[in-house]
């Protein structure tokens, strides 16, 4: 039996959509960009080199927690071995789940990949190709409800990556009071990540959204109002912070591999 727009009771129209605009463009772009990022991030997570150029650490490898981490790159010590069961593990893999989980469960990215990857739906009023749909009611998608835990972890990472940006005010000899292009790259990354996290829907909810009586919580009401303004731009922050992370990594990789020199302003 046909379902959806082809159900018996609905107006008999054989096209799955009658939209005449380029509705496929948006999901195609989203697909292309996210897919490229995933490929690049996977390559970098496994590459296990060129992630540190004193004092710059790539965000894909910070905090660097394994015993194989290059000297000076570990902000929080090295509690993990570089090998488990005889298999060498890139330090990136110990931390990747947190930023990855944060973005995977983000309300905005969910929209983006449900549309672009899963085509559920590919665009509004364009019939999706699936015969069954249960949304986020059962495993694994019910786990999307855990977004807040990744949000909290994301805040910890923001603090660490902000520290990385501050440490970038050192020079390669470890003296303070210097500034390079790398400093700006890491500062930019940290600021964008804060904007992304602060504009998060869970953040908005936690700060004030869950309240029923704003009038009894004037401070939280103010915070909620400010975050609501940021929240409006959450999709934008989601994208530019993604580019920010990728750019920081590309820059540090180029410096660490010797392809570029990190230019110091002073």
């Amino acid at each position, binding site marked *: 039996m046909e379902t959806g727009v082809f159900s018996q009771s609905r*107006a008999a129209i054989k096209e799955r959509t009658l939209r005449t605009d380029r509705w496929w463009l948006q999901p195609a772009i989203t697909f292309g960009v996210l897919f490229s990022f995933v490929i690049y991030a996977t390559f970098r997570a496994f590459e296990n080199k060129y992630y540190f150029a004193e004092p710059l650490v790539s965000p894909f490898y910070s905090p660097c927690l394994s015993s194989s981490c290059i000297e000076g790159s570990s902000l929080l010590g090295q509690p993990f071995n570089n090998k488990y069961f005889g298999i060498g593990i890139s330090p990136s893999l110990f931390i990747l789940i947190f930023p990855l989980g944060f973005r995977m469960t983000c309300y905005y990215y969910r929209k983006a990949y449900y549309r672009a990857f899963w085509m559920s739906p590919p665009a509004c009023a364009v019939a999706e190709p699936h015969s069954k749909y249960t949304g986020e009611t059962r495993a694994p998608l019910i786990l999307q409800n855990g977004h807040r835990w990744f949000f909290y972890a994301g805040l910890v990472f923001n603090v660490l990556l902000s520290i990385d940006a501050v440490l970038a005010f050192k020079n390669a000899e470890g003296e303070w009071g210097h500034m390079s292009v790398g400093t700006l790259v890491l500062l930019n990354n940290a600021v964008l990540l804060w904007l992304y996290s602060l504009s998060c829907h869970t953040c908005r909810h936690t700060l004030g959204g869950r309240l029923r009586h704003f*009038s009894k919580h004037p401070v939280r009401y103010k915070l909620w109002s400010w975050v609501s303004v940021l929240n409006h731009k959450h999709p934008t922050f989601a994208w530019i912070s993604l580019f920010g992370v990728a750019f920081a990594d590309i820059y540090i990789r180029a410096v660490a591999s010797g392809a570029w020199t990190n230019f110091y302003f002073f």
Partner: protein
Amino acid sequence: MARKLKLRIWRGDADNGGLQDVVVDANEGEVVLDVIHRVQATQMGDLAVRWNCKAGKCGSCSMEINGKPRLACMTQVAAYGDDETITVTPLRAFPVIKDLVTDVSFNYKKAMEIPAYEHPTELKPGEARMAQIDVERSQEFRKCIECFLCQDTCHVIRDHEENKKSFAGPRFFIRIAELDMHPLDRLRNRKRTAQEEHGLGMCNITKCCTEVCPEHIRITDNAIIPMKERVVDNKYDPIRWLGSKIRKREGME
């Protein structure tokens, strides 16, 4: 200045139907509903179309124009190119009755399933007080004109007839959010029932409802996601769940 407009109108009923081409005059400044009325007056006397206010306020003239759920009275003919054929069909998520008219009773049934506002019993008439900032947030949802375009475009039911029994739809999620955010409503199980009875978990926040809402209600960001977060507080967050058991209250803050 009149122009010749090419229209393709779906005509038929529950058993049969298809798109029919017509050419009709369109004057400057006219909307799609105007030209449909002209077709009705001059060429298809028995064309069925539902409308009322012609001002975008009654929500009757919902249909799909070039595949997009829209109000016909708010869609300018001038928005389409001179050579473009404009295709008008009935809403594709609901059973068709005749031509452009669909049976939207699904929505009234869902409306009845949402328990109404419950006034605090201890307050006598005239005693209720609410602060402006406490009601502001849900006032956005009161702008709804019940055009059901959001319901029509929502893939959960548009693409899956079988989900209709378990899914209330975006229009009713804003209703639930409005009541759950209401400073005085006594009913405190709206989060649980939103998830367990009204199908909030089936929404995958792909935002098509927000995209088509003629009142520009930010359905997903301001109602559905906040409700999903409230459900998490209540059902999936062990820390808050424990807290609510100890304090024995839900959402009283």
